[in-house]
């Protein structure tokens, strides 16, 4: 990382001309570009939201256009967990364990009313929002949300990946350690 630290942390303006063309000064951006265009989702399909999740991957909505078509059923190969459906208290330990098995950096989409807040299931066997057990980055309302809304959520996660990389880069310039995960 060359250049004066902290002077123009985000923009290119005001930098020496040479530095704009040195790739290594923007390594974090390239990593983020790679990450955001190859998000591998872990489909945590627990209820009817999973049907919309499948529709998003199917040809009509075709999430392959965003590079996130490789749904991995092994958490060790995934970096985006899509919690789609009602999380019961019985399922919660398994879900937490699967999240823990995912390698860093990782992101979480809470899809639909049930996963985001418990939805209409205000009852004892249902976790009132999956963010009570795992950290959630993007919440999608709907019962279930349309596949477009889920694509919107994935686009939001892509923004978070870029922002996280930029924050890490600025932190490295300022001598701070990199954050544990991307956007948070």
């Amino acid at each position: 990382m060359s250049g004066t630290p902290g002077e123009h942390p985000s923009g290119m303006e005001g930098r020496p001309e040479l530095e704009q063309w040195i790739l290594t000064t923007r390594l974090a951006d390239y990593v983020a570009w790679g990450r955001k265009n190859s998000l591998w989702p872990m489909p945590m399909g627990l209820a009817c939201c999973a049907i919309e999740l499948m529709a998003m991957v199917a040809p009509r909505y075709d999430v392959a256009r965003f590079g996130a078509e490789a749904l991995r059923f092994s958490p060790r190969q995934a970096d985006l967990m899509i919690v789609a459906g009602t999380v019961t208290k019985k399922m919660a330990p398994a879900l937490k364990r699967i999240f823990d098995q995912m390698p860093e950096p990782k992101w979480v989409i809470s899809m639909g009313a049930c996963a985001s807040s418990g939805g209409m299931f205000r009852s004892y066997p249902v976790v009132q929002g999956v963010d009570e057990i795992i950290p959630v980055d993007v919440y999608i309302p709907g019962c279930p949300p349309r596949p477009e809304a889920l694509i919107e959520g994935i686009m939001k996660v892509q923004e978070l990946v870029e922002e996280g990389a930029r924050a890490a880069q600025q932190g490295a310039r300022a001598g701070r350690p990199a954050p544990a995960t991307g956007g948070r």
Partner: protein
Amino acid sequence: MPVSGKPVRRPGRPGLLELTYLPSILKGMWITLRHIFRPKVTMQYPEQRWQLPENYRGLPALVKDQEERVKCVACFLCEYVCPPKAIHIEAQEIQTGVEKGPRVFEINMLRCIMCGYCEEVCPEQAIFLTKEYTTVGLSRAEMIFPKDKLLEMGGLRPDPIKKWGRLTSKREAGGRVHEPAEAGRSAAR
């Protein structure tokens, strides 16, 4: 007991041609090739949108009438009927004829299941389901929409009930003022 039906035989050893896998590869490539000439089904989402039907139920929103007055009178019917209890209302007294309005009107969009019961039950036609379906949020607090945001989402809708004209000014409403209703209201006070 006699056995009926004929069991399926295992396929025999593959021939030399099958061992090269060429027939299977060509068959697969033929399927791929055929799909190139078929009509394309993918909707290019952020640029291309789905044609929403007239009665589509998206996120709920409050509406104002043609003179930009909040139509909601804080009757709490929508809060009562809401299956996931997503609506939170606090009423206040207002200085016009309808006497009551919402001070706080919040809808937790993460609870909301877009069932449309609130729209159905509302006697003042003050809450409607919009066609908004692509909202996402970064936190739970962000997804609890306050009154201002709900009114902004809803926009204007002309009031077919015209309760304000009836109740606030007799002059504007002319002869359509119901005297018994007026008398009843003052008697109630």
